[in-house]
């Protein structure tokens, strides 16, 4: 069963659940005029349509301007929050350890290329570096593959939460632990974690008072195939086909209509799927890097240090531009093990220091089989 077939099975189960409880799954407009048919619009939407066609609407700023405004708001919020943190620390808590910094994370620095070169498509190809990293991964001893797969990470994610009785989507630091069992069941738990310092590095959670449990979920047996990643093909063509099939096939990765291209799909699968619950054997990582090495729009950023202090080699996969953002997926790979250490989503923002905003990141701090 493909990933989309599993999703469709969930849709069918949800639909059946609603019908069993006497709830019609299709939505009904709460404000629809009784006389309005399916091919008619309300008076308000008619006015809106006329205004759009007349060029009178200004509510949708161009992405560049939107980001500029957004950036300024974030900066103001950061200044206000930072000032309050300093005030609180010095007058009430009397400690210098509550150091989580508000605002977007600082960008990391890279040894070979700038992000501007990546966005412009002028950075050097990462192909040869990826092939070297593949050789490093191949030289690692095989891993034992018995027991539960346990993946731990530190990340900044966008997630849902309730604040003061209002549902909110928030970006907050989490320390997560995902466990995948041999029967395909899984448990995921996320703790509100410590923040980042001014250099974008993780503050030790033991000295951050904000840490604490947030969420946890249990997924039933059969949810995942525990052997999926360790059974991935060890040849480039097979690996590419297997990963693209997982995301909907090559036609879903054509780069047209605002969708991802092949490199973007591979990156999406690697960061959002392969490394989420599974432990990646070294030879699978090696094949992964050889697969990326064969793709265009994969650029070398060079040596860096990830947010938990590990040396790595950064490569950037450019996603096709969308109406709202231009995004580079940055993969940071260990030069000593050939394993993926971290990934980041960096959205182009000419108004920001370094030319980009961090949309999300994840540092994999541990991935192992636990007997």
């Amino acid at each position, binding site marked *: 069963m493909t990933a989309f077939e599993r999703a469709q099975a969930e849709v069918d189960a949800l639909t059946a659940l609603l019908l069993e409880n*006497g709830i019609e799954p299709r939505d*009904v407009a709460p404000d629809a005029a009784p006389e309005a048919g399916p091919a008619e*619009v309300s008076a308000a939407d008619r006015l809106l349509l006329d205004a759009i066609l007349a060029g009178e609407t200004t509510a949708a700023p161009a992405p560049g301007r939107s980001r500029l405004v957004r950036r300024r708001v974030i900066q103001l919020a950061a200044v*206000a929050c930072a000032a309050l943190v300093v005030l609180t620390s010095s007058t009430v808590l009397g400690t210098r350890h509550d150091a989580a910094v508000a605002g977007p994370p600082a960008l990391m620095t890279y040894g070979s290329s700038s992000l501007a070169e990546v966005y412009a498509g002028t950075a050097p190809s990462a192909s040869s570096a990826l092939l070297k990293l593949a050789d490093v991964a191949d030289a690692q001893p095989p891993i034992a593959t018995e027991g539960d797969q346990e993946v731990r990470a530190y990340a900044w994610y966008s997630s849902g939460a309730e*604040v003061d009785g209002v549902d*909110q989507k*928030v970006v907050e630091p989490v320390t997560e632990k995902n466990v995948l069992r041999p029967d395909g069941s899984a448990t995921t738990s996320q703790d509100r974690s410590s923040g980042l310092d001014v250099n974008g590095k993780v503050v030790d959670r033991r000295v951050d008072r904000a840490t604490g449990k947030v969420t946890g979920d249990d997924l039933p047996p059969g949810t995942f195939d525990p052997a999926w990643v360790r059974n991935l093909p060890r040849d480039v063509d097979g690996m590419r086909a297997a990963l693209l099939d997982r995301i*909907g096939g090559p036609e879903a990765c054509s780069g047209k209509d605002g969708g991802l291209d092949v490199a973007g799909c591979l990156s999406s699968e690697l960061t*959002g799927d392969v490394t989420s619950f599974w432990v990646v054997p070294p030879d699978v990582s090696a094949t992964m890097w050889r697969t990326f090495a064969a793709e265009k729009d994969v650029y070398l950023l060079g040596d860096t240090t990830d947010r938990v202090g590990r040396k790595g080699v950064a490569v950037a996969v450019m996603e096709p531009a969308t109406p709202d953002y231009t995004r580079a997926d940055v993969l940071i790979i260990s030069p000593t093990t050939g394993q993926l250490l971290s990934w980041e989503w960096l959205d182009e923002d000419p108004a920001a220091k370094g030319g980009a905003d961090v949309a999300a990141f994840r540092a994999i701090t541990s991935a192992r089989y636990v007997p």
Partner: protein
Amino acid sequence: MPEQSAAGEFESFFVATAPQVRRYAHRMVDAASVDDIVSETFTLVWQRWVDVPTEEAPRRAWTFRVAHHRVQHWYEAKQRDVRLNRRLAPVRTDVADHAADVTDEADVAAVLALLPPAEREAMWLVVCVGLTPKDAAFVLDCSASALTTRLSRARQRLTVILADRVAQEVNR
């Protein structure tokens, strides 16, 4: 800007799709912000009309993706407001959560209002709007596995919520 001949095509698309986007926005943001989401979404779609897919299903998914990003921006702005106001002033009460007003209604929107935003959004798109999982993953900019996980969690939560309702009605 698209040529005048495109205006009719956009109008037909708007008439067919705007009510769906409006209902989607109604389930994701407060009532006062629904008009802004719809307006911003279709203004951008019209500005980018030459780039918008011509086939119906991808065009609808493209539009919902724009709306999804508008909703994300709304949440980010709201979160900043809440954080600032929690520190600088008493909690504002001028932004009401409309979901609380409909939780006694026995319709799908009332049930979905009890889910976290990410799960509610995924379920609304595929179950209520009728997007395919592939199109919904495109809209939400996530993998099929991530979409499945959200739907699975939504189903687990709804199973408990609906069972509780049945129990309450039995005891009434």
